[in-house]
């Protein structure tokens, strides 16, 4: 790793001010993401501030981002290009991508939080605010180096998950190449409120398909009133959210796989009432 100075944060206000003032300062918490990036010389902070003793948070998945031979990656080096756009992109996005970046968000937890519309409580130099989870992560656009809407000095204080009527019957289904220790090829977090055998309301978010967890908003609307036994109606509702899927050269299978995973997750969640 490159050398850096180290200190421990004693209170959120000082930590936030330090981060806001110094663009070369990085927070460290668990460190399992940052340390890896520092060992690969992708992250090069000059000062590391340990926030573990503050009271009361995996970045992005694309092999070219961590590539030691410095292949084009707009996320790692803005303006250098996107090697995955026309390269190896089996694992990459089918929604919301741009020519500048086709990477996906690898998190499992984020997909569940997006489905449940959790709130991210952020404290920054200008005070505290709450960000709805679905607005926390960004689409790459032409600034893929920014994964989320946090600004310098921002510190995530907590994540709140309000009780949702759909929260009692939920399921997270993750499909991946290996049985263990592997990011999702495609995943679904599904939560439903049932009325007998019919879906009263549903929340469905997908992982492994975009730069952020992907809510199937159109499908959610179409799923209201659908019977859990009516497989064709379930499939039709889900398909609506896949009309605007834009697969890349190697990941066309995700369009079909995604719909099947969403269907299975909904069925399991609905059966849990």
């Amino acid at each position, binding site marked *: 790793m490159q050398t850096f100075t180290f200190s421990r944060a004693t209170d959120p206000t000082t930590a936030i001010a330090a981060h806001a003032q110094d663009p070369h300062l990085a927070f460290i918490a668990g460190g*399992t993401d940052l340390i*890896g990036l520092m060992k690969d010389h992708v992250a090069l902070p000059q000062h590391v501030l340990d926030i573990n003793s503050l009271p009361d948070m995996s970045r992005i998945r694309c092999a070219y981002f961590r590539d030691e031979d410095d292949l084009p990656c707009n996320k790692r080096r803005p303006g250098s290009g996107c090697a995955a756009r026309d390269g190896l992109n089996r694992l990459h996005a089918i929604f919301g991508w741009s020519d500048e970046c086709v990477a996906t968000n690898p998190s499992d937890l984020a997909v569940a939080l997006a489905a449940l519309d959790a709130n991210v409580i952020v404290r920054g130099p200008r005070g505290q605010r709450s960000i709805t989870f679905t607005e926390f992560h960004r689409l790459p656009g032409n600034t893929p180096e920014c994964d989320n809407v946090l600004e310098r000095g921002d510190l995530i204080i907590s994540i709140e998950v309000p009780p949702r009527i759909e929260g009692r019957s939920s399921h997270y289904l993750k499909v991946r190449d290996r049985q263990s220790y592997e990011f999702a090829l495609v995943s679904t977090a599904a939560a439903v409120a049932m009325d007998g055998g019919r879906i009263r309301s549903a929340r469905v978010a997908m992982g492994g398909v975009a730069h952020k967890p992907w809510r199937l908003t159109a499908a959610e609307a179409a799923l209201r009133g659908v019977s859990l036994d009516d497989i064709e109606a379930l499939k039709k509702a889900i398909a609506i959210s896949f009309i605007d899927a834009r697969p890349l050269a190697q990941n066309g299978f995700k369009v079909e796989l995604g719909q099947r995973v969403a269907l299975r997750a909904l069925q399991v969640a609905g059966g849990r009432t």
Partner: protein
Amino acid sequence: MGRIERITVEPRMALLDALRDELGLTGPKKACDRGECGACTVLIEGRRVLSCMTLAVMHDGQRIGTIEGLEHDARLNAMQEAFIEHDGFQCGFCTSGQIMSAVAMIEEAKAGWPSAATEDVTRPFTLNDLSAAEIRERMSGNLCRCSCYPNIVDAVTEATHRR
């Protein structure tokens, strides 16, 4: 038990390197150095941690447990004995990480932590729920290229129920 050590290191020194190079504790192994294999697993305040993915300076003042500290009065710990009885190692390189991870994993199970393999998360998890499937899931962060997995599961199972 244990001893207080005082060393001066650069901020960029990983805990693993501090333990091995500054303190001569070569039990924890550097295999992948990227937090992907578990061979460097140590205990910090009783919790299992990948020592290659954390900085030594971050743990100033904390209790750190390595494989060297498991034996007591020249007697091996129950988990170590189980690994020997069940032939849970071949080359031995992953073994200290496996054992440290397993020791902490049992405490997690005792504390009621569910895992991704847990079927029913609506009731508290107990040691009795620690099936082979649960052990495999909870130990899935410790890789073994010699493929001693079946014997490792047997060893951990035995040590769990020997308590």
